[in-house]
């Protein structure tokens, strides 16, 4: 069953995020994927996430396909112009990658190639328009394509900073849905009750809402997020809980698992991001009872 | 029984307990000389057989001393050692021995005082328990292992 049909049937979908390597050694990527094969519905492959140069998501998606798994790749306008993007989309279809997630590319200044020149030929809305056009068999210049690609396209909501921003973000997201986004992915919030409130608001857009569970790894990381990303509402009690744990890593896995448990009845799908600790994903799934 | 001086073997891991023992020495903290240390790289190396053989050869008590839980230099050698000590305790119980003749103790390299106080405590416990059941008092008051 593809992701799309499963979502349309109302079944819970479980996605995990896996980064392509910075380099050509794909052994970890493949091994981690294999360990999850029967347990998840799709693998989300970010494309040079956070502005850090990695192997392209297109290749990552193709590798997942080779492993018999369903890929979903990020697309955004920072690094490629409309030519490159359309070309890559056609390639994606041919390589068996049919799930797209339109994201906003991280500011170049935050990445590892700070001197690079951002392209920004198309914005997120343009991208959705572009995908829509390709689906219809026409490229952005109006020329007809030989063979139409098929895509299931979603939109990645920006991290919510506060209630005002939430309202604004719902508006922009609605525009994306109107432009053809078929599902939306909501970034992580650590206060579950608050997260559920947010998710419920997005549900009003009438497309499947996928929540994100982001794995904390230690106190330092939790502290960093609580200070630097107040919108993610990381409660002090969570930091205390990790500090008090005898085995902090296991506790972090448990926390992620519990979040998934709480969220799974509330949303159409859950994406788990272990951010480099993909080898711990099976343990998180165990804890989540998935 | 009063002048019974037990023979105690302590299997100490190099990184924590052995260093703690050195630390106790360098701080001149006295503890009973009954404790004799055999150094191992990690308590995970200590096999149940080593403990059993120590008893067989005449030990009145044996303890395995490793790093604090969660702090093992080799990730989890000390927790494995703990299970092995429990295994030996079960054996001893089955044999009708006191299971407290063997123990697992955790400490960090800096805990010289703790090393000394546990050595004292363990020695006192073994004194309470008396000589190993395989030892028999000769008329001159000396104990010998029958072997």
């Amino acid at each position, binding site marked *: 069953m593809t992701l799309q049909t499963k979502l349309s049937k109302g079944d819970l979908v479980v996605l995990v995020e896996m980064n392509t390597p910075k380099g050509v050694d794909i052994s970890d990527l493949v091994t981690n994927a294999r360990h999850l094969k029967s347990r998840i519905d799709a693998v989300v492959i970010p494309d040079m996430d956070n502005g850090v140069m990695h192997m392209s998501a297109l290749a990552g998606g193709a590798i997942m396909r080779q492993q018999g798994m369903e890929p979903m790749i990020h697309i955004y306008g920072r690094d490629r112009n409309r030519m490159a993007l359309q070309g890559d989309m056609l390639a994606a279809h041919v390589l068996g990658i049919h799930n797209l997630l339109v994201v906003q590319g991280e500011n170049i200044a935050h990445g590892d190639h700070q001197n690079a020149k951002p392209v920004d030929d198309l914005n997120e809305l343009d991208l959705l328009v572009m995908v829509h056009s390709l689906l219809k068999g026409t490229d952005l210049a109006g020329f007809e394509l030989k063979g139409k690609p098929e895509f299931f396209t979603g939109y990645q909501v920006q991290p919510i900073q506060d209630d005002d921003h939430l309202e604004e973000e719902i508006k922009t997201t609605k525009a994306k849905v109107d432009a053809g986004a078929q599902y939306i992915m909501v970034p992580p919030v650590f206060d579950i009750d608050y997260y559920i409130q947010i998710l419920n608001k997005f549900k009003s857009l009438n497309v499947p809402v996928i929540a994100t569970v982001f794995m904390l790894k230690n*106190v330092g990381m939790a502290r960093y997020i609580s200070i630097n990303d107040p919108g993610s509402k990381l409660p002090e009690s969570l930091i205390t809980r990790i500090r008090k744990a005898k085995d902090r890593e296991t506790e972090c896995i448990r926390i992620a698992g519990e979040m998934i448990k709480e969220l799974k009845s509330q949303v159409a799908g859950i994406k788990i991001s272990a951010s*480099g600790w993909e080898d711990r994903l099976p343990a998180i799934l165990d804890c989540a009872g998935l | 029984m009063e002048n019974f001086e037990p023979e105690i073997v302590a299997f100490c891991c190099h990184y924590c307990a052995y260093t703690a023992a050195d630390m106790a*020495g360098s701080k001149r903290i006295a503890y009973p000389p009954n404790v004799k240390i055999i150094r191992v790289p990690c308590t995970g190396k200590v096999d149940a057989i080593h403990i059993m053989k120590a008893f067989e050869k005449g030990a009145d008590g044996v303890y395995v001393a490793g790093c604090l839980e969660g702090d093992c230099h080799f990730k989890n050698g000390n927790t494995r050692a703990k299970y092995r000590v429990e295994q030996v305790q079960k054996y001893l119980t089955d044999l009708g021995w006191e299971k407290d003749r063997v123990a697992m103790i955790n400490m960090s390299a800096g805990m010289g005082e703790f090393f000394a106080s546990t050595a004292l405590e363990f020695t006192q416990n073994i004194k309470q328990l008396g000589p190993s059941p395989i030892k028999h008092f000769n008329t001159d008051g000396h104990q010998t292992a029958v072997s």
Partner: protein
Amino acid sequence: MQKLKNIQHDKSNDRSVLVIGGGVGGIRAALDLAESRRNVILIDKSYSIGGLMTQLDRTFPTNNCDLCTVSPHLSENTRQIHLDLQPMTQLEELTGEAGNFTATLVTEPRYIDINKCTACGECHKYFPEAVRFTPGLDPRAPTCMRYPQATPYAFSIDMEKVTDIKALQKACKADAIIPDDVQKKTTVEAASVILSVGAKLFDPAVLDNFGGGLFDNVVTGLEYERIMSASGPFQGDLVRVSDKKRPKKVAWIQCVGSRGINKADVPYCSGVCCMYALKEAIVTKERFAESIETTIFYMDMRTYGKDYELYYNRAKNDYGIRMIRCRPHSIVEDYKTKDLSITYAVEEEALTKTEEFDMVVLSTGFRVGQTSIDLMARLGIQLNPHNFAETDHFNSVKTSRPGVYVCGVIESPKDIPETMVQASAAASMAATDLPAITDIPEIENDFMPERDVSKEEPRIGVFICDCGLEIGGVVDVDKMVEFAETRAHVVVSQAVGYGCSSDSMSMIEASVKTNNLNRVVIGGCSPRTHETKFQDLMRRTGLNKYLVEIVNLRDQNTWAHMGQPKEALDKAYKLLGIGINGVRKSRSLTDQTLPMNQNALVVGGGVTGMTAALQLARQGIKVYLVERNPGLGGLAKSIRKTIEGDDVGPFMNQLIDDVSAHENVQVLTRSIIVDHSGIPGRFKTGIQTGPRMNYMQLDHGVTVLATGALPNRPDVYGLGTHDNIIDQLELDAVIEDNPEKIKAVNNVVMIQCAGSREPDNPNCSRICCQAAMKNALRIKAINPDAQIFILYRDIRTYGFQEDYYREARNLDVKFIRFSADNKPEVKIENDRVSVFVDDIILGRKIQIETNCLALSTGMIADDENTEDLSMMFHLPRTQDHYFLEDHVKLRPVDMSVRGIFIAGTVHSPKTIQESITQAHAAAGRAQTLLAKKEINLGAAVAKVDGSKCAACLICVRACPFSIPFINEDGYSQIDPAKCQGCGVCAADCPAKAIQLLAYEDDQIMAKLDGLFGGIN
């Protein structure tokens, strides 16, 4: 017999660093450089190196005898390739410039060929007069060693005092006397110079009121050390000089010759005397008798170092050492009994008292001798007003002459750990004038080929140290020797004195050869400290280094059981039994090696981290600088001025620019460490980096932790409740940014130790007293009419900071002392802040209304962060959550996990300059590891016997590092290059098919047999 090896200078790296002074500082600097494969010439005017520290009895806080901890550093074979030791040598002239100096050296005649001398001591039997052994106490032989592990291990002769040269030559069986030895002059090329000549101790003889030099039972601190020392004049017995009787009452008088009260005094604080007086008092009680009464007369107790306050508290509370805050006026000797009476004023009661003592120790401090002043003139470096070497305010080892660096007491008064830090820092700085470390090729060690002993019957040699009195003073070494003789296969059994001294080492080496030994047991101290040294010895004899077993007779026997000599002897027999049986089963093993990763990870982007990163980067090392905040700078960025008056801002901006611009530094801000694995030289650390927490793994060979401490914000004295109640850091900013506001203040009150020296933060924050002086003086400069009150417990302006304290007093800053149990009170009424304090001198409570109350809140460890890091990196911490270094005296920046170093305030509170010095030191120590191209993993790896293996997979699953796998032959295989050597698989293997080399089961069984008297 140890020879001084002729240096074969590496051609491509032929520029050396000249280190002047062979005290601990000079030795540390020289060894750091040599270990980093830099060529070093170490000169010392004395006939053997070691300096002051080797004369000390024990050092705090561990109260160890540190001879043995220093000595392993002195004779490691492998280092000699790069280290050229020239005793009895002085610098005459230094020309040229940084990178290209020419030094003229003069070596005095020794009259003994050190390559022939066996240090047998025959010569001194015949000519016992003339040369002084210990300052002031011990007139001894003309050919005399200063301490038993002297390096080089050879006598020297003071030819002027020799009457009959022929007779002397005759006495020497080794034919080592060179009567016509002459002074030699040489020139050497040096890229840089490190000056580490230390300082002299003040001679109290000039003070008539303390009878120094006149009264037998008044001694200086150092003399007291010598009296207690096992190698001292009374063989380690504490007795009075006058009647050789054990004293019952000993007093210490602090600040003798320091802190400028008398005419002969120097104005500065000598920094170390408070700690050594406490140590001597504790050791007196600990080693000699609880009942000896110990009293310390002091002005301010300056226990400002790491955990020193705890040591002070122990002295007071656990040992009952009496503390009297008073400067005694004089000492009077009873001419008959030679007892001493001290007259002193009791502060609280305003009366004087006279009390009798058996012995009085004068805590004398440092001063720079004329020879050092002359030497510094020859080096062309500037002196400060106190005749110490003037250094850069942001780099304490950098002198006024580029390329010349200093370390140790010649820079400023300091204790051993600080000297060690500065030595490593100086070495690191000196290396910057040499080619980058990454450009130096590696030279192979060439030991003789190993002998195959597998077919031989065991022939065991047992060598037992007495370690001065440390072992021999508790148990009878001869009896142990006899015991060992009776064991099977023991061919040789003998006592060797200090086994780690070079003569004993040579003797053992010779014995191995003449007796054709194939296994060796050393009964001595802990293998943790000395195993390598004896393993090197084995290699020199052509034996595999795993054929030696060290029996821990000292640390785990005589030290712990000194009160039970009989039981300790019995235990010694058993420990020897374990060792002998164990070595019998030892096998020759090969060490595993892996290539070194030459990147460095520096955690923390404050002043310390940046300095360390830059220093490493300049040596060609790729550095990852990880900082959790969005920008670099850390706490130092919020400081405006140093006490010396330097602007911190421009300095920091320059540093940030340099770091950001350096091609070898990869700055990773907004980065959090989340995992860590690997072994020293091949670490792998995972970080989350950037605003979106991108995960990244860094490969690196070493780690420098410089994550700093936090400014303390305790909830005391109304801090945070009123605009006029601020901390010193805020005051610093106000003074700089808003002088108008300062002009408007009338009464300024500062309260010291706010939140420090308290149960929940027991140590001294070190920086607050100088911060108070700094800010007080600046306020006075802006607003001379301002009244300033500093409420304190002890003023701890150590070293030259005392100058600022004196200046503050001169400017009429009021100092009011309070005690921990009677603290000032702050009241806010009608928005006005008042401080109430009991004035001890006035004997009443006074009220000061203030419009500026500055609290000296100091620092507190970043518990949450160090806890996280300590778990990931497996590092110990102190009780108050700072990182705990490997050895508090001798390895102050090394952590117990090799390859991890700490610097800055994550170690303990310190000033910017001190942090920078430690950063350089950490970078220098890191280079000693990075200079190697290979990592030695040791030989303790698991080995599978395929014929026994049942391929059950238990090892595959049990291994914490996932190393074993089932190979195509169907049995488990363990890659020795990956095996970490924990032995979990060996213990779990149900088929007993796995053995951990060096800890095989048969060896452990044999050890058990040895313990219980059986033979195996």
